[in-house]
């Protein structure tokens, strides 16, 4: 029997957010959390774990890559470094 796939997110001791660390198989959420503890926090990698059923994630498609991401390529004015800070403004 193939068990559902789960994506695992771990928050490290000094981190503020949960970071994706990998995936695993488990029959249900309770076992997924325990498997995640056993597979991904053996070396004190974290203090908190989230598991999400992979099928519950809606992901962008590689086919849409061009229209999704390319248009942002030439919008340099969206970066703060595009703007010159006027003289005399020290703590903007």
């Amino acid at each position, binding site marked *: 029997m193939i*068990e559902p796939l789960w994506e695992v997110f771990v928050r490290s001791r000094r981190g503020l957010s949960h970071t994706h660390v990998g995936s*695993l*198989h*488990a029959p249900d959420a309770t*076992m997924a959390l*325990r*498997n995640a503890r*056993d*597979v991904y926090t*053996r070396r004190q990698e974290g203090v908190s774990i989230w598991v999400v059923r992979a099928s519950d994630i809606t992901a962008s498609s590689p086919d849409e890559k061009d229209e999704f991401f390319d248009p942002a390529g030439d919008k340099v004015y969206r970066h703060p470094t595009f703007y010159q800070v006027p003289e005399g403004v020290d703590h903007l």
Partner: protein
Amino acid sequence: MNDLFTYTLRLGDDALIAAQRTAEWIAAAPQLEEDVALGNIGLDQLGQARSLLQYAAEVEGAGRTEDDLAYFRDERDFLNLQLCELPNGDFGHAMARLLYFATYQHLLYEQLLGSADEILAGVAGKAVKEVAYHVDHATQWVLRLGDGTDESHRRMQAGLDALWPYTGEMFASDPLVQRLDVAVDPAGLEQEWVRRVTRVIDESTCERPTSAYQHSGGRDGKHTEHLGYLLAELQHVARSHPGATW
């Protein structure tokens, strides 16, 4: 023989032999995640064994080390529970054993925390958190297998039944534990053990085994035929190359 040495050896041998059986599951468990989970559990047990055998060697004061105790004693000198040495059987058997043994260890270590012997109390302090997780792991599986398919229920029940006659030995009191004031008399753990194990078995929809016959002898070095084979595998490298180091 020194009482404290013998007592520490009993606890250490339980952990060592359990670790060896648990490790046999690595690469043979039903899923990769379970290989890792059981690997972790086996290493916890091995860590407990090392601390206890190290202390036993020190208490004995005969110049032996933890390795001498693990690799150069014969079957009759091992004092572990027979429950720990039985072959793995199927996964239902493995989870039944882990439920029985880890629940026992958890109760034992909780008591040992209050021991006047600082080393034993220290080992117990570290181990009690480890075995709490072992209990949880076994519980999760007993519930799922017991309350799963007809086949998983049948196998879970078979595992619980097969190992039940080896659980009485865990709670056998004897003059040594009564004499040794830093030891825990396991007789006092039985009632709570039955209560905790029964709760899990009931919830799993399995039947709590009722077999009255109980095996015994492990604490006196009397073992099942299986321990000799286990030791052969555990000890053969150390005995073939005495003194070898990495």
